[in-house]
């Protein structure tokens, strides 16, 4: 960072910081320069940190009462819900917290897509973010298995069977994942172990994610480089901290709206039926946040093909900084990309809707069109747009779009008039 070197004031501070520079780190984090034009879409990083902490804290508490055994898992969840003091609250915060975590991460990812935050020099922020997202999906999937309801069991069966599509070694991989010939007690036990581990790996990656962010600094809605420590930036504390808090409190209102009033609306009622390896529920669906990928899996009329396309739809995002060759970051100055961005948002939501529907008739046809479009967007449209799109002229500084709006001076005069009355004539 280009900040001035921090020197602690007290003698003890100097002694301590020269041995373990926590004070320097704290100074760096509070004075970290942020572009002053960051909008509320930039508050989701803080919200996501809150989500991760909430999941870890509630999860550690749930682990004190949960029993990872096929004979007891379902009952221990009911025990948490009915007998443990505030068990219902802690479990509903944890289960809805997973959904809220994904809601926030999807907004965060689409923010990155709209404002081109994945472009040079921020590729590593994007890639560490995607690894976090992959780990989140693995963690959420394994967590959903733990209550050992019907959806837990059959979700685990379907997802682990994805690996049986791999030629030659597929069968050995599923046996290795299960620790048996089907999803059973060994599977539940190892999923519990890994479900406890992965959040801490996510935490480690979040540190790398923020570290790689603090090297180039934040992107911003205009997408041009800001001059650090100029009048274009503000220290993170208190300015961004306060803005993040406003957004966080709003987010918490929605979060606890679900926890208190609709705690089961995002889950599936079948998961309140204990797991039965002899009966598959009539309609298996994953949690809502995995539905677009589930739709892609089912859109391909071949087992191996479906699995390949599903994984490709996630891994293709890793290559995004190189697929999108346009030098302009923000969609505000990319008139054509901006339209395709919204088409992509629509297609992903549509795929999510189709993932919850049976794979037949019009649903299947639309899922195939959606899947094709998803890949065309990244593999064809983005490289072509980078080459042929005529972008709008970029402003010289992040203040320009605000200051050089037509009529802005008149507006200032008007505002000044209402505050200063007669003295407005002196305002030029």
């Amino acid at each position, binding site marked *: 960072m280009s900040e001035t070197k921090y020197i602690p004031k007290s003698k003890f501070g100097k002694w301590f910081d020269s041995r373990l520079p926590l004070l320097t780190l704290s100074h760096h984090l509070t004075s970290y320069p942020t572009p002053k034009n960051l909008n509320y879409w930039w508050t989701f990083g803080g919200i996501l940190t809150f989500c991760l902490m909430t999941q870890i804290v509630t999860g550690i508490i749930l682990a004190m009462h949960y029993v990872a055994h096929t004979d007891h898992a379902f009952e221990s969840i009911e025990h948490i819900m009915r007998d443990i003091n505030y068990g219902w609250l802690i479990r509903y915060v944890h289960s809805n917290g997973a959904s809220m975590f994904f809601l926030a991460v999807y907004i965060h990812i689409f923010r990155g897509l709209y404002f081109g935050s994945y472009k040079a020099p921020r590729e590593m922020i994007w890639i560490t973010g995607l690894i976090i997202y992959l780990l989140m999906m693995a963690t959420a999937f394994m967590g959903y298995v733990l209550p050992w309801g019907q959806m837990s069991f059959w979700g685990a069966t379907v997802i682990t069977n994805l690996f049986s599509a791999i030629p030659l070694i597929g069968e050995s991989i599923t046996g290795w994942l299960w620790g048996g010939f*089907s999803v059973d007690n060994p599977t539940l036990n190892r999923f519990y172990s890994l479900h406890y581990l992965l959040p801490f790996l996510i935490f480690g990656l979040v540190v790398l994610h923020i570290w790689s962010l603090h090297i180039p600094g934040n992107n911003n809605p205009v997408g041009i480089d800001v001059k650090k420590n100029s009048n274009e930036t503000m220290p993170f504390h208190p300015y961004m901290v306060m803005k993040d808090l406003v957004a966080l409190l709003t987010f918490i209102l929605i979060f606890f709206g679900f926890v208190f009033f609709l705690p089961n609306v995002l889950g599936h009622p079948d998961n309140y039926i204990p797991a039965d390896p002899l009966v598959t529920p009539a309609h298996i669906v994953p949690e809502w946040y995995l539905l677009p990928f589930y739709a892609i899996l089912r859109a391909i009329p071949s087992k191996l093909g479906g699995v390949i396309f599903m994984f490709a739809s996630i891994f293709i995002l890793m290559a995004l900084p190189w697929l999108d060759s346009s030098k302009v970051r923000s969609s505000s100055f990319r008139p054509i990309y901006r339209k395709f961005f919204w088409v992509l948002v629509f297609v992903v939501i549509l795929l999510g809707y189709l993932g919850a529907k049976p794979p037949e008739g019009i649903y299947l046809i639309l899922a195939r069109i959606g899947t094709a479009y998803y890949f065309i967007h990244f593999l064809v449209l983005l490289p072509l747009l980078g080459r042929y799109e005529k972008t709008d002229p970029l402003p010289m500084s992040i203040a320009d779009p605000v200051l050089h709006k037509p009529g802005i001076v008149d507006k200032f005069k008007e505002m000044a008039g209402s505050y200063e009355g007669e003295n407005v004539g002196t305002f030029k």
Partner: protein
Amino acid sequence: MTKKIHTKRRDFLFTATYTIGAVGVGATIWPLIDQMNPDSSVKALATTEVDVSNIEPGTSITVLWRGKPIFIRRRTQEEIKEASEVDLKDLKHPEKDSDRAKNPEWLVMVGVCTHLGCVPLGEKGEYKGWFCPCHGSHYDTSGRIRKGPAPINLEIPKYEFVDNNTIKIG
């Protein structure tokens, strides 16, 4: 000249050290990976005997073997006829019905869809055999895949008739 010899000697030592190190790391990691494979107690439960004397033609039972459902169906003459008359060219995974059911009246299959492992529903689907509700695979009266994403026919486990009324699976 001496220097050159020394470099070669050092290269050899490095390569040898890396090799031994890699073998050591591999040998250390293998138990940590292999512990997740099916253990001896799981493998020990490998056979199940089933009494089939109460099954009427046109009905089936489902038993659990190695944690997986096994369909045992006593087929009607119509079903056998339908299954044996199918042209092998129409099949995605061509297998003769006579190879799948040694005794044509009895069809014993692993009741796990070969797509992603759901349990198909009996006497359903376009071919009156089994239908998987998860991703829409249709199986015929011999348990062969006819339509949908499943790549192969329902698996036939190893089984034998111990006597007229008992099937030993595994």
